[in-house]
């Protein structure tokens, strides 16, 4: 089989979210890693992997095809384009014998959407209780939080654009809540 295998992300973006003040898109297949590194080894591990591991919680480093977010004191969440970074997991795995660290592949645990438009903060604030003003949530900030009953990871891509991801089974709820809000405004 394999050629006809269906890649299924649990949710589709309804048309109502594809146009208007905020445009929502479903992010395709990505390499996602949860990387944990003891403080002393952070810089060495980053160097060995050829990436930057920001030291402060909430900070991200984004370069061509890869985003690295510091989610906890020793925790980094990495999202990379599949073609370019499919081998990053194995690379990190090899380092495990040398450094005090762990890497876990969570590529298929999450489903991500990107929202862009002038009223993007309002849609995020339908379920997320954080202050999304640029002062409080600047471009590049990334954190775990909630979207009503769904735990999410929220990342500000630009002034008017966010990426939101959640565990796969929460995706219909996350998108459903966004849809309910937009429908109620549009009628």
């Amino acid at each position, binding site marked *: 089989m394999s050629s006809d295998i269906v890649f299924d992300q649990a949710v589709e973006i309804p048309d109502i979210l594809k146009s208007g003040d905020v445009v929502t898109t479903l992010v395709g297949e990505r390499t996602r890693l949860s990387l944990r590194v003891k403080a002393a080894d952070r810089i060495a591990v980053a160097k060995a992997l050829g990436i930057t591991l920001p030291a402060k919680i909430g900070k991200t480093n984004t370069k061509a095809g890869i985003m690295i977010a510091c989610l906890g004191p020793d925790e980094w969440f990495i999202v990379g384009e599949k073609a370019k970074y499919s081998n990053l997991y194995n690379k990190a795995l090899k380092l495990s014998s040398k450094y005090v660290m762990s890497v876990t592949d969570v590529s298929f645990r999450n489903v991500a959407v990107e929202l862009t438009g002038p009223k993007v903060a309002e849609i995020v604030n339908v379920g997320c*209780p954080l202050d999304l003003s640029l002062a409080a949530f600047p471009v590049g900030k990334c*954190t*775990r939080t909630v979207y009503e009953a769904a*735990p999410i990871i929220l990342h500000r891509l630009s002034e008017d654009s966010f990426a939101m991801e959640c565990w796969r089974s929460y995706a219909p709820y996350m998108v459903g809540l966004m849809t309910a809000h937009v429908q109620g405004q549009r009628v």
Partner: protein
Amino acid sequence: MMLIHCPYCDEKRPEIEFAYAGEAHIVRPNAAEQQAMDDVEWSKFMFIRDNKRGEHCERWWHANGCNMYFNAVRNTVTDKFIKSYKIGQKRPSAAQIQKWKDQANG
């Protein structure tokens, strides 16, 4: 919904991201200590809590944030947080708590 300062994120975040985790500074005895404890002593560790009215050292888990457990002093009457601090820091003395309160009041 309270705002809770997470000492790891160094941010005040909404209560909904956190989970309460009971009284702080109750240290689990190690294997040898456990065996040296009689049932009464063990039951005190297991079940007996201060249930304090007033300033209470307690544990919180930033479950939907940085995923870290931390401690905080909260007044259980006013629901005001006085200070949150990282796991591993010692239980603050009454004088220390007073100092924090004075600092908060400018």
